[in-house]
């Protein structure tokens, strides 16, 4: 392989026949699609036809690394998972960090493509370019931590000798928002990718540490740019010092915390629930990802309250918001407990917290009785009841069977007013752990119009200034938000091609410089945008081919409602929604009425083959 950063091989695993084969990646394919979501988008489009359902054996589950993973760029060991996902029945792309993205390459592959369905539960073992499909029936029903422990024991390896990603009981039961979880608490969570593993009878994937087996074209340049990147990352927000929870109170201050299922924006306890409080009151130990100097991932011991002594991974922001304000809980120790529980079961914390918050609101308002909820007293803040309910969801027991379908489907089944209280998009995916009505309009808009079933153009707010565009001035301006979401779109999907972590790589220009040093290419920032936009348009045509409707690119009634109190009280994004959408479509090179990519847009991106499919 003459391009640095690549092994040049994809492993194809046919679970139906229990056979695997190796496919070479050509340079033109690599240059066009780069890796991660790029590789995934191309394979998904080519191999999953319209009409194939998410749980059909013909669906593909595609795990891909990228050129920076394992290259020595700090914290670069991310991998991307893409498939046709159950929440939206459209493309779903999600990433996880830890070690896997680097170890997969060290084991001989840039990616794995799963197809078919195994006759019984199996796991995939990969080492030094060899792959074996092994019996996993002894792992049935185990949670993801137990699965990691059992596999390490069976293989007689130490903690960091292998990277393991698996599904828990939720994935095995095909709960629609199951996650793929590994390396002790990292998740590819959105759009039910874990349910697809379950549908294929694939319990886990194991890759060995191995040794670097690809070239770095300009090691000196990489070293120099990498150091600068780290210095920039250290001062980009609170992550280095306080973790992602360090922004919790800042999000509250602009009305962005989800409190009791969007029924209020008041949560005065936020100062005792944030990353600063956790890191100054609980015991903390670092458990960094592969070669990460940011080292924001920690393990904590709770030091106060009912869960004193509980040891688990430190909750990220998303978990703090999910198991704190969204369910009316004000005990930080309980957040640690529930975060650990949801990860062990292998469920997406975002979707599950929208489900639980909705159940609690329905219980408070009399839609659900205690009997309806299998005897559970689902009042706001009852964390022990939440823990039991999560277990019911993961195993589809009792009321958990309905709730395992996610908040959109469950609320539609109950109907009446309760259907209006669910937070989701009309496509079926749900937002991350914020109240996007408060100062996060870019993310609300992105969540509704995305082609990945989670973020596409934003990372919370957009940051036009990091790519030399003028900054957004007013986060509540309909025109500014839709314009800048379009102008900024592309660079974040480029990120997701690379196998790197955004927390460790927040500066796009430095990231492009690192890519060039690794690969030997001479990409510009504009090239990076083009690659990202190519991925977006590929997925958009896929989604239209698979039944996406323009009318579904909007929030549910509650998700798009007007905050009744708090810092963003009275702000109404829906007031000019149609104008925002039309403006965005136009700037993206899409038909302003239908939202379909225009032929000239596809041609410009080298996607002329897709024109016929529209």
């Amino acid at each position, binding site marked *: 392989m003459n391009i640095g950063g690549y092994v040049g091989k994809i492993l194809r695993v046919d679970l139906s026949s229990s056979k695997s084969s190796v496919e070479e990646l050509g340079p033109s394919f690599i240059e066009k699609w780069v890796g991660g979501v790029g590789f995934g988008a191309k394979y998904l489009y080519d191999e999953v036809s319209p009409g194939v359902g998410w749980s059909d054996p013909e669906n593909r589950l595609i795990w891909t690394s990228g050129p920076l993973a394992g290259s020595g760029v700090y914290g670069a060991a991310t991998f991307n998972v893409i498939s046709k996902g159950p929440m939206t029945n459209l493309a779903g792309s999600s990433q996880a960090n830890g070690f896997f993205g680097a170890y997969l390459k060290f084991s001989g592959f840039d990616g794995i493509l799963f197809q078919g369905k195994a006759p019984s539960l199996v796991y995939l073992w990969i080492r030094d370019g060899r792959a074996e499909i092994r019996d996993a029936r002894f792992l049935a029903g185990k949670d993801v931590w137990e699965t990691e422990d059992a596999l390490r024991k069976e293989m007689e390896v130490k903690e960091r000798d292998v990277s393991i990603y698996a599904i828990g009981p939720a994935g095995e039961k095909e709960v629609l928002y199951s996650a793929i979880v590994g390396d002790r608490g990292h998740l590819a969570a959105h759009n039910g990718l874990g349910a697809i593993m379950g549908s294929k009878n694939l319990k886990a994937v194991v890759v060995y540490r191995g040794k670097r087996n690809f070239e770095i074209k300009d090691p000196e340049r990489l070293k120099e740019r990498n150091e600068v990147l780290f210095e920039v990352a250290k001062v980009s927000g609170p992550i280095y010092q306080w973790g992602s929870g360090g922004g919790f109170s*800042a999000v509250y201050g602009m009305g962005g915390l989800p409190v009791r299922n969007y029924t209020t924006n008041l949560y005065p306890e936020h100062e005792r629930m944030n990353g600063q409080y956790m890191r100054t009151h609980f015991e903390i130990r670092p458990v960094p990802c592969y070669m990460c100097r940011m080292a924001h991932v920690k393990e904590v011991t709770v030091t106060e309250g009912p869960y004193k002594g509980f040891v688990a991974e430190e909750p990220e922001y998303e978990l703090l918001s999910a198991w704190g304000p969204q369910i009316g809980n004000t005990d930080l120790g309980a957040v640690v407990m529930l975060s650990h529980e949801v990860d062990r079961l292998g469920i997406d914390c975002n979707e599950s917290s929208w489900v639980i918050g909705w159940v609690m609101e329905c219980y408070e308002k009399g839609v659900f009785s205690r009997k309806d909820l299998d005897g559970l007293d689902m009042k706001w803040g009852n964390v022990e009841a939440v823990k039991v309910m999560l277990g019911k969801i993961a195993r589809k027991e009792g009321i958990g069977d309905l709730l395992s379908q996610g908040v959109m489907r469950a609320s539609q089944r109950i109907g009446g007013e309760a259907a209006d209280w669910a937070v989701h998009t009309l496509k079926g995916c749900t937002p991350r752990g914020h109240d996007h009505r408060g*100062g996060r309009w870019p993310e609300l808009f992105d969540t509704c119009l995305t082609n990945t079933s989670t973020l596409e153009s934003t990372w919370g707010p957009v940051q036009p200034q990091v790519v030399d565009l003028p900054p957004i001035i007013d986060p509540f301006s309909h025109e500014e938000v839709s314009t800048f979401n379009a102008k900024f779109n592309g660079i974040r999907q480029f990120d997701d091609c690379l196998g790197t972590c955004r927390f460790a790589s927040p500066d796009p220009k430095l990231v492009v410089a690192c890519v060039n040093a690794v690969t030997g290419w001479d990409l510009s920032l504009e090239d990076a945008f083009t690659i990202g936009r190519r991925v977006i348009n590929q997925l958009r045509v896929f989604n239209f081919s698979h039944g996406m409707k323009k009318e579904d690119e909007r929030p549910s009634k509650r998700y798009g409602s007007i905050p009744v109190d708090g810092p963003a009280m009275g702000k109404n994004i829906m007031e000019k929604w149609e104008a925002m959408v039309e403006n965005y479509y136009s700037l993206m090179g899409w038909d302003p009425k239908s939202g379909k990519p225009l032929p000239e847009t596809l041609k410009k991106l080298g996607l002329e083959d897709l024109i016929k499919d529209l």
Partner: protein
Amino acid sequence: MNSVTVELWLWLGRELKEDFESLSEMRSARKEVVEEGTNIGQLLNHLANRYDPFRQEIFDIREKRLHPQVVLTYNDRVISPHDLYEQVLKEGDKITIMPLYTGG
């Protein structure tokens, strides 16, 4: 003359500990007395001229506007940066300045 409270959240207050009273581990504040008719933009400009960290992290005195990674609330409601020079301060008003958080 009107007395107005200026509150800084999280790391925005870290370099101004001597001039802002600590309210909690993440909040600090000071009272400012402003002339009748002073608007928010004028007060921010005044503070940016007085304090280097304020100028570097919060208010751009050359462009006369907030830095992009900053959010401002007026009496606990988010206010559009376009309205800074429209909103005249009254006795007892509070403005809170906090970082715009990305990621999470």
